[in-house]
């Protein structure tokens, strides 16, 4: 397995500054993650399922959003990539189908969830972004990681099985835009 890491967090953006999101596919739908909480992307090179990855001695428990968002019944899909997120003491690795890259948008392009959605989903999503003739649903990181606080495990791996590589490829080039 390999992990692409972000080198540093972005400074807090002003209202006029672009927002940055990592666009992924889960269960055939576009979902976005707030880049300011993004630590990196883990890729399973041999097609095996993701286990709780350990990066720099810290375990990131896998978050199965397909179950929480009730996407699991819509067919099987490979979960060979993981999005590593950290929000304070909460950490997790969200298994995804595909990582498309980082997307910069202005605040005005982050559309609110329509008011007709009146259930707990108002907490699940931060909003929507127009993307590729479709819509990216931007997930609320606090909700994504809400069950992870007690699951945080610090573990020093004497013999790490994963390699940590510098930000590279698509992630690197798009990160510079953020």
């Amino acid at each position, binding site marked *: 397995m390999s992990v692409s890491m972000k080198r540093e967090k972005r400074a807090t953006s002003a209202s006029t500054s672009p927002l940055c999101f990592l666009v992924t596919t889960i269960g055939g739908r576009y979902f976005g993650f707030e880049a300011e909480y993004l630590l990196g992307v883990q890729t399973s090179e041999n097609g095996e399922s993701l286990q709780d990855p350990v990066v720099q001695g810290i375990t990131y428990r896998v978050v199965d959003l397909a179950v929480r968002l009730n996407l699991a019944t819509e067919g099987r899909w490979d979960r060979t990539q993981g999005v590593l997120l950290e929000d304070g003491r909460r950490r997790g690795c969200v298994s995804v189908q595909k990582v498309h890259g980082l997307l910069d948008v202005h605040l005005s392009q982050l559309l609110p969830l329509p008011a007709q959605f009146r259930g707990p*989903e108002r907490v*699940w999503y931060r909003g929507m972004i127009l993307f590729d003739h479709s819509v990216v649903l931007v997930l609320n990181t606090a909700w994504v990681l809400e069950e992870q606080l007690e699951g945080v495990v610090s573990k020093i791996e004497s013999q790490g099985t994963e390699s940590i590589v510098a930000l590279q490829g698509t992630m690197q080039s798009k990160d510079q835009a953020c």
Partner: protein
Amino acid sequence: MLRTNGHAQHHETSRSWNLLVFSVGGRRLAVRTLEVGGISQWHESIPVSGRTPFVSGVVRLNQIVLPVFDLAAALQRTVQGTSLLCLRMKHSLGDLAVCIDEEIPVLQTLDRSMIQPYRDRDVPAEGSYAHGQEEVPILSVSRLGMGVW
């Protein structure tokens, strides 16, 4: 994309309502034309996981994203046709998109004296009228997606 029922449309008055009559799963329904934002071809909706009954997705119309009210599911029916239509309704919380049958909707003017209370509770209605043996509900758009009706 509309037909009239053979009678000229009149301005809505205190004595009459202008209605758009359409069908979902073969079931005839009506909505006041004042509450119709437009009709267009239906594009596949984008599912949005959530727990609001019958509001389970959005549809993108160019640069606009509208929530979808699944009227067919509320009626426990399946929309009919291969060229389905999108009926845009003016809801107090913002426009709603509803997928309807491919059958072209009809404009109709109805004298208010013909409007009766709607007896069923499958959809929120401002009333109903008789069309032969059929009772046609006039949808209460403001109550769509607002819980039990």
